[in-house]
């Protein structure tokens, strides 16, 4: 095309000759803004990509008396379409890199990084990613790793492959619930601290996989599991959690691939992975030469290091591969066939050590897989699997969890720990449609080891009625198993539920009768066991709200078989009451859950367990009343959270440790620590604790409540808040957190605080407020710590004109502290200030303050001190963009040489202190802001001249 145009141009002899007369005439007025003639802009130069980079960068520098502290953080995210169908997503996040070497880092050193390009036909992912493979029934694989993943897709086929390296270890734990404990299940062994890879966990409750965020949450830093909603596992509920946790001494390399073909009638999957320890890196980073020699010589026998170092873990390799075929015809015939193999090398360094290797198969064939059996009222299906003994079905579990321990006990009377040999399971099932929505199922299944060391057969007949309004099921089961004992169980289960309407009753029950018989063994007491469980209730459901009430029982009785005086004895009696309510209305948002369980156990006697949670918000700030209430009750293994202070370069922090009282004091000039957040108090260890918390906040405006238009009451707001939290590890049950200080003293740890508020604001510019309050705190630490603070605070203000303001503050505070020392003191503090604003943003503010404190210690030694302060502040504020001030204060403190608590005189020493504080915060534009803060202290009360400069720059883009 271009060629032809050029040829045409040449042939026509088009020489370029400028017709100067047709040029526009220059007019110097064009240079005046807005006068320039408009020409179309050069669009090629201003075209912008649809890909956008966003993120932030912050840099904080604090220069203190003894050193400097630099903190940097950067996060960058790139997202958008490269072309119409190529999508890019990338992220880089880096924290705490030193200023000097910020330009480069190796891939491992960067906190999080990935780059992903995706189109309908291909995928490339570099950096951090999670490989997720759940295409197989016999095994599954999920791993968070750092590496590369590629994928291609065409037609019905898709292929993906990945290589990655990580320093995580896969854990799988199974435990039972604790009655009354909904939160704080420790995932580590022995309650030690764990760093779980975020998002790597899978949780099953009684073999049912739970949904992250909805059914449970995991506290990844620490490894604790909290159940949510109305899920409260009890003693007979089995919880299984698989997760990855960071482990620096375990470098793994992962190779994984999967392919799938998805024809409407044929689904094919092939997938596999290899997970092995990266011997080169371990040799380089973790192992000593001796370790390596020892690993090479390993012959599978005892493997203990000579020195006192920790256990040396053998480098391993696991290979798994599987293939699966699913075919369907006529939307009813269906077959699912799968095979898998597993091979493990227990020490990849040593030639003398090999590992287990085995295969597994699984099949499912049915004549009608449709739910309603619409084409033919009868369906036959065959299900079965064979799992080799060395296959290792408990690791890397797939979607078909046929041999999971809960199912084995609950349905087959088999104890998973006693199961050995090659596993076989066969099942034949018949499903019939008897009536329009009425179905019946007849099933017979048989599980055994190859050599019949144990077996179990299960026959069941079931009926199901599934209509739009009601769903009900009934099933009769007989299970006969031979393991340690020979057992026969007869079971009936039923459930029914209304699915529509305002009132929706529901109920379920499960009755079992089990006989056990010895297999020729003498001396074993043989029992008949009867077990019954039922739960019934009612749910009210409407737009925006629902209420659910349920009552349940669990009863177990047993008697010795063949005994002459065989009497039925109670072995377990449990009653459960569950209540939940949700409402989302305009003036009230409520979320409530309460569960009570009473149980009488043969061994443990009577037990009560309560779990509850309530969160409510009512009203809003424009209404006469608004507030919130929150209440929580339960048991937890979660250790108490304590404030964590990070040591920084001396003088650069704002928290200091007062050795006299043994407490950390926040908000000081010359600190050696900074507050880092709340952390778990690991020194205490994980113990089951009873825990309860209550918080309430209320605000009341009489003017809107009673329609008052005039007078004092018109301008008044009354308010108050109350907060309390308690925890007890001594076996005492807390149903409500302590409300008095003596109540707080009786439990292990907790806090209690309350505050009242009375505010008056007259339209003429006069304001007054009064608030009494108290704080009580008891912490669990190596020494007993209890602090009581009680205060009254009042303030008065008068905005005389637009530019003149005068205000006064008074505070009376009593502190009783029992820590390293026992100290009681009282503070009276009063201040007065005047503010003059001028020149659109500037202000001058002189002020005076007087503070007097006196107290005594446990030996009766008294101390007192007073403080006089005069200050002048000059400041400038503009449109929230510039905020600057300089404040100079002269402080005279007299204590007569007594040792006083640091807080009592706001951290000032005996004598005279001059303090200069300057601050500037500036928003350069909508993306960049800088702030600077400087403190200078000198005078005869100070040992040295103290200076601190901290600056911070923040950029968002």
């Amino acid at each position: 095309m271009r060629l032809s145009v050029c040829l045409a141009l040449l042939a026509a002899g088009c020489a370029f000759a400028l017709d100067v007369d047709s040029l526009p005439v220059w007019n110097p007025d064009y240079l005046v803004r807005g006068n320039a003639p408009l020409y179309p802009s050069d669009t090629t130069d201003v075209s912008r990509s649809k890909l956008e980079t966003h993120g932030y960068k912050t840099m904080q520098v604090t220069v203190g008396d003894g050193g400097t502290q630099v903190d940097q953080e950067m996060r960058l995210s790139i997202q958008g379409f490269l072309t119409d169908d190529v999508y890019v997503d990338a992220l880089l996040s880096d924290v705490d890199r030193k200023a000097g070497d910020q330009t480069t880092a190796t891939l491992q050193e960067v906190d999080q990084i990935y780059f992903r390009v995706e189109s309908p036909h291909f995928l490339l992912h570099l950096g951090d990613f999670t490989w997720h493979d759940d295409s197989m029934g016999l095994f599954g694989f999920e791993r968070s790793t750092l590496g590369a993943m590629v994928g291609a897709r065409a037609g019905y086929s898709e292929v993906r492959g990945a290589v990655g390296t990580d320093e995580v270890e896969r854990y799988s734990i199974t435990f039972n619930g604790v009655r009354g404990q909904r939160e704080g299940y420790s995932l580590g062994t022995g309650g030690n601290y764990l760093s779980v890879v975020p998002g790597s966990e899978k949780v099953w409750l009684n073999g049912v996989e739970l949904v992250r965020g909805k059914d449970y949450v995991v506290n990844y830093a620490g490894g604790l599991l909290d159940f949510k909603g109305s899920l409260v596992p009890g003693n007979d509920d089995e919880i299984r959690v698989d997760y990855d946790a960071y482990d620096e001494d375990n470098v793994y390399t992962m190779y994984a691939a999967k392919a799938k073909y998805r024809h409407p009638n044929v689904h094919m999957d092939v997938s596999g992975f290899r997970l092995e320890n990266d011997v080169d890196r371990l040799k380089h980073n973790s192992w000593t030469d001796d370790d390596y020699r020892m690993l090479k010589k390993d012959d599978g026998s005892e493997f203990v290091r000579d020195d006192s170092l920790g256990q040396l873990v053998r480098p391993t390799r696991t290979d798994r591969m599987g293939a699966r075929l699913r075919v369907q015809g006529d939307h009813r015939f269906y077959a699912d066939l799968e095979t898998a193999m597993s091979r493990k090398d227990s020490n990849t360094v040593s030639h003398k050590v090999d590992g287990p290797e085995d295969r597994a198969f699984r099949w499912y064939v049915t004549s009608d897989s449709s739910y309603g059996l619409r084409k033919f009222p009868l369906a036959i299906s065959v299900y079965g699997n064979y799992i080799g003994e060395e296959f290792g079905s408990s690791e890397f579990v797939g979607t078909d969890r046929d041999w999971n321990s809960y199912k084995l006990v609950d349905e087959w009377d088999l104890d998973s720990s006693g199961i050995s040999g090659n596993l076989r399971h066969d099942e034949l099932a018949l499903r019939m449609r008897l009536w329009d929505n009425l179905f019946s199922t007849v099933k017979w299944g048989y599980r055994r080891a190859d050599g019949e060391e144990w077996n179990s057969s299960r026959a069941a007949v079931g009926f199901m009625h599934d209509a739009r309004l009601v769903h009900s099921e009934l099933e009769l089961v007989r299970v006969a198993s031979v393991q340690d004992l020979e057992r026969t169980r007869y079971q009936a289960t039923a459930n029914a539920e209304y699915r529509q309407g305002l009132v929706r009753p529901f109920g379920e029950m499960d009755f079992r009768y089990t006989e056990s018989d010895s297999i020729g063994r003498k001396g074993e007491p043989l029992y008949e066991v009867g077990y019954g469980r039922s739960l019934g209730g009612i749910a009210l459901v409407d737009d925006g709200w629902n209420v659910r009430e349920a009552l349940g029982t669990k009863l177990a009785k047993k008697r010795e078989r063949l005994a002459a005086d065989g009497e039925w004895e109670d072995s377990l009696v449990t009653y459960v009451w569950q209540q939940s309510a949700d409402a989302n209305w305009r003036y009230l948002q409520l979320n409530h859950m309460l569960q009570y369980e009473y149980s009488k156990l043969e061994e443990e006697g009577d037990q009560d367990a309560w779990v509850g949670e309530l969160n409510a918000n009512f009203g809003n700030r424009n209404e006469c009343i608004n507030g919130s209430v929150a209440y929580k009750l339960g048991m937890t293994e979660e250790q108490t959270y304590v404030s964590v202070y990070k040591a920084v370069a001396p003088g650069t922090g704002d928290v200091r440790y007062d050795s006299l009282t043994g407490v950390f004091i926040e908000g000081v000039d010359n600190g050696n620590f900074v507050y880092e957040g709340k952390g778990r108090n690991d020194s205490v260890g994980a113990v089951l604790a009873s825990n309860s918390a209550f918080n309430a906040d209320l605000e009341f405006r009489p003017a809107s409540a009673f329609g008052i238009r005039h007078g004092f009451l018109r301008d008044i707001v009354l308010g108050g808040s109350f907060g309390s939290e308690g925890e007890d590890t001594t076996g005492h049950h807390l149903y409500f957190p302590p409300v008095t200080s003596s109540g707080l003293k009786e439990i292990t740890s907790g806090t209690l605080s309350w505050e009242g508020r009375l505010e008056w604001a007259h339209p003429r510019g006069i304001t007054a407020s009064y608030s009494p309050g108290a704080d009580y705190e008891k912490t669990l630490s190596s020494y007993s710590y209890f602090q009581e603070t009680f205060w009254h605070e009042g303030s008065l203000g008068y905005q005389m004109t637009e530019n003149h303001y005068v205000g006064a503050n008074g505070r009376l505070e009593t502190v009783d502290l029992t820590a390293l020392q026992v100290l009681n003191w009282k503070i009276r503090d009063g201040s007065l200030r005047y503010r003059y604003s001028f020149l659109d943003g500037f202000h001058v503010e002189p002020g005076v303050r007087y503070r007097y404190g006196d107290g005594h210690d446990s030996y009766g030694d008294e101390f007192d001190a007073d403080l006089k302060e005069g200050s002048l502040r000059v400041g400038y504020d503009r449109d929230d963009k510039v905020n600057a001030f300089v404040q100079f204060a002269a402080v005279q403190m007299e204590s007569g040489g007594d040792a006083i608590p640091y807080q009592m005189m706001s951290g000032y020493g005996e004598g005279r202190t001059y303090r200069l504080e300057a601050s500037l915060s500036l928003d350069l534009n909508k993306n960049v802001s800088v702030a600077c803060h400087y403190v200078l202290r000198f005078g005869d009360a100070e040992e040295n001249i103290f200076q601190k400069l901290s600056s911070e720059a923040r950029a968002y883009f």
Partner: protein
Amino acid sequence: MIDVNERLQMRMARDSRAGWTLSVLPFLAVLLLAVLSHAGDKCRIASIAWEGEHSEFDEAQMAGVVGKPCEAWLVMRDKLVGYYENHGFVGAKLEGSLDSAGILNLELQRGVSYVWAGAENLDSSGTKPEVFRKLSGIEAGEPVSLSDLERSERKLSRLGYFEKTAPTRLFRDPVRNRIFPVYSMRKASVSQAEGMLTYSSEDGVWDGLVDVNLYNIAGTARDLILEGYTGDGSRHMSGSYKEPWVLGTNWNLVVRGRFDEEMYGDDDAVEREIVGELGVTREIGFDFTVGVFLGLSEDGKLSSFEMSYVSLDRFVLPRSGWRIDGNLTWKMDRPDSLDNFLKAHARMVKYMPLYGNFISRFSGAAGGVFPTDATVKRMDLFSLGGLDSFKGMQYHMLRSRSYGFSELAVLWQDGYDLSIEVFYQPGLYRPMPPGHGWAREQGYGLGFTQYRGNWSVNIYYAMRNGENYLDGIVGFGLKTLF
């Protein structure tokens, strides 16, 4: 009727933007025509007959077409007309007709000559008008040259000070034979400043970084660059300042200095270098710059000669053109323990559009210290590693007496603000003792650059010599531009 300015744009676009793909097309066309004409009926120009006023120069120029195929004179005509267009006669026309006897009748209408008026700018350039005129490279009073106009537009675009918002247009003076080149160049955000400085009184250590790049300070074409950092075992600080057109001449005065301190070896030996240099640079034509510097360091004197040729199409994410820099430094008057030496260094980059948004970049650099057996300090050697040299190495990872590398990169540029590239960089360097001979170095990786509003983001990931990808380098730069 197409507007004159639009025809001007068409011509400039034909000449420049399309790069080599388009520029070779006319030659191909001529070749094709020549082949076609040879293959068919052999029409040839027998002689030339001139009409009207013309010069011997014109006759000499066109004489070459005698005996050539009939169409060949068109190419010569364009050349001649182009000559006049670039020498003030912007309205020059050459008309011709070929009769059956093969006689070419030519008539040249040269028209009146025009001179340039001072360059003007319609957009807000943030630059003083007289500075803008100087930067444009177009001198008032000189004969109008359309190629200079095009070169000047490219020059302004690659300075970095401006962003072109509309095509350049010509205006005429109503009373005199003057033509105004009128640009639409908006001030671009390319300056940046970032800094941090801390001092610990406890161990008396300064720590920090400074990165200030101020271009076109207050619209006066003065540039100030300051860079420095303290890292583990090394400190670096360098700065340069350019005062343009000193004393009204075409020479720019440049002052620059450098401070380097490095700890090396097992015994943490410290080596330090402080250099101050003063020099002049000047532009020759639109693309060349030369510079001469004289300097002092704590252990000698140095003089250097620098040359650069830049024909990139723009400053931010160029798509076509060259950049070649050469530098020769002679360091003399050294203490007895050290030798005088010559340090030579050159680098080049060539951008070439491939297809659509794909662009290729070839680059290479080489440097050496001569004589090769001269005794020099560690600091006198080249510092390798980082974005400017071997990307797969850590920043300033090693020192070398001589090195060279070439790089091939394929870039994908979206719009004018985003670029994604893959690069392969083979190279060689002389390792420090006890190493000897040449060490091979291979780097390869991916890069990403985006300019968005007042931000520029640059990330690259580079690996070297087949090392584990976990040890690959992630380099990142984030700049706030103003």
